[in-house]
């Protein structure tokens, strides 16, 4: 696998830079016309941790993910990856600086095969201009096998795979990029029970590899089963942050709907410090 161009955590942090926090967003705001999609939002993601971002429709969670992924540029605020400021102008830029994203539409090419999709935008080459298909197929096969992703063959077009298999391929592609931070937008949307379980196992395996994983999801069952921490968004603000082990579904639903009040800033800080 050619990952020489992919920066690992140490490479990004650089010598002497402590990388306890994988990703930090500070006071980010984003306004679309008259709508404030994000209002002074903070977020912290740690290595070996799965953070869920939940909220009602319009809460700002997708905008938040897109700001982190480099799709949108925040109007104000800073993003730090392993302590280094990041000014990503595009998803490719963010990826180059350590953030891989699996978008809800998966960004796959249905007419092309699994192997190519695993290397979309970063093909293995020889003599600089030729696509090294053999190497891409071998690497794709090894990666999928390693993460127990079942596809009939890496030569099969994505269009012939089921929703769960496509999701798995998209996640495996993000894993292959070997970035310290992985963002997932609604990874279980439109998946069946068994496929959701497989995706959950795949995501959980990222924790053991030291990745910082951020998931935007409506699926609270999945969140409680696989995530470590929950950040509740409401009306473009961080409404609350809870550790999964110290909360329950009723409380999270209450926070999402606004039945429970927003945490005061010191509450969130205390809860984050109590992790």
């Amino acid at each position, binding site marked *: 696998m050619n990952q020489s161009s992919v920066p690992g955590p140490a490479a990004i942090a650089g010598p002497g830079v402590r990388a306890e926090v994988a990703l930090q967003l500070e006071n980010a705001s984003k306004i679309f016309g008259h709508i404030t999609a994000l209002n002074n939002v903070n977020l912290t993601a740690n290595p070996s941790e799965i953070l869920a971002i939940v909220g009602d429709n319009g809460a700002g969670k997708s905008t938040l993910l897109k700001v982190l992924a480099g*799709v949108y540029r925040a109007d104000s605020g800073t993003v730090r990856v392993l302590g280094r400021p990041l000014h990503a102008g595009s998803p*490719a830029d963010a990826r180059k600086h350590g953030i891989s994203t699996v*978008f809800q539409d998966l*960004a796959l090419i249905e007419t*092309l095969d699994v192997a190519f999709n695993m290397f979309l*935008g970063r093909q293995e080459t020889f003599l600089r201009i030729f*696509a090294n298909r053999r190497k891409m197929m071998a690497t794709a096969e090894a990666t999928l096998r390693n993460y127990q992703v079942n596809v009939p063959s890496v030569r099969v077009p994505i*269009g012939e795979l089921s*929703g769960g298999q496509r999701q798995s391929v998209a996640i495996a592609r993000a894993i292959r990029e070997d970035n310290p931070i992985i963002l997932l937008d609604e990874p279980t949307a*439109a998946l069946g029970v068994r496929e959701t379980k497989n995706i959950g196992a795949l995501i959980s395996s990222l924790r053991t590899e030291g990745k910082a994983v951020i998931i935007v999801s409506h699926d609270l069952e999945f969140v409680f089963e696989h995530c470590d921490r929950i950040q509740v968004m409401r009306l473009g603000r961080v409404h609350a942050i809870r550790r999964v082990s110290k909360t329950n579904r009723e409380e999270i639903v209450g926070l999402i709907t606004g039945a429970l009040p927003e945490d005061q800033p010191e509450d969130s800080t205390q809860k984050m410090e109590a992790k």
Partner: protein
Amino acid sequence: MSFGPAVARANRWLLGSPEFVVAAVILLFFAFGATQSQQFLNPETWINILRNAVFIGIAGCGATLVLITGGLDLSVGSVFMASAVGGAFLASSGWPTALAMLGAVGIGILVGTVNGILVNYAQISAIIVTLGTLFAVRALAVTATGGSPIGSLPDDFTAVGQGSVFGVPNLIWFAFLVIALAHVVLHYTTFGWNIRATGGNPLAARSMGINTRRLSTIVYAVGGGLAAFAGVLMASRLGSGSPSLGNGFELQVIAAAIIGGTSIFGSIGSIPGTALGALLLSVLTTGLVLLKVDPAMQNFAVGAVIVFAAGIDRLRKTQMFTKSARDTQLVRNHKVQGASK
């Protein structure tokens, strides 16, 4: 005795390998033609058929690349004519043959680049932009020439299109070279795979770091350049550049690509397929003349082949996603059942 597996296999070949189907149709037509006219067995006839296929084949390579990126270029016929006229003008003005030909190809690259910029950066629909350049380029060429052909071309210039090497016309060598090169680019280079990715899902390709706008603009420029190359070869072959050339040529070129299996939905297609598509069109038009079929009905036959090829394209696309649609439906049903319990 079950015909199921045989039908499934035939179906897979039909949908999975359009090149095979086109080659089979050419052979069948040849076999039928040979029983009707001795001319079909004459090597001269086949040299003529190949020579006629050259122009559609060369321009078809460019059209194939454009179609695979999800684009469309209707200006091919006008570019073909403009470069024939331009090349003839430059050659008759005393430019060396190579420079005159390069200049003519430059006209195509220029028009293709304008098309690409308008489609990709100004975000104007490809069909509108290239329809506009189709009329504009033709109008400019007709105005510049006053509607008269440019003849009396130097021997050097006409020798390119009329000469031969090892008994094979130069035109066929040129076509072979362009087809081989385009095939290598599309099938073996990262650029070629990015062309397919762009045609398959431009948003996904862009979000994964492919500069789809630049890539598509380059492809339009290449398409224009190849149409122009075909045009200047035509001028060389005929010994003149006429502003009446290339009417409807764009449709033949696009037809060759579609007959050869290039999808009008983008991403799918092959250069050998387009070459065979060009050959089939040439075989049909020449063959139907030999069979003394009414010229009006010749166009009917070509039209029928195009519609048939487009139908196969649709069927292939549908079949490709039948499995995933079925699986997704099963998953949804399972979820609905689970939720209702």
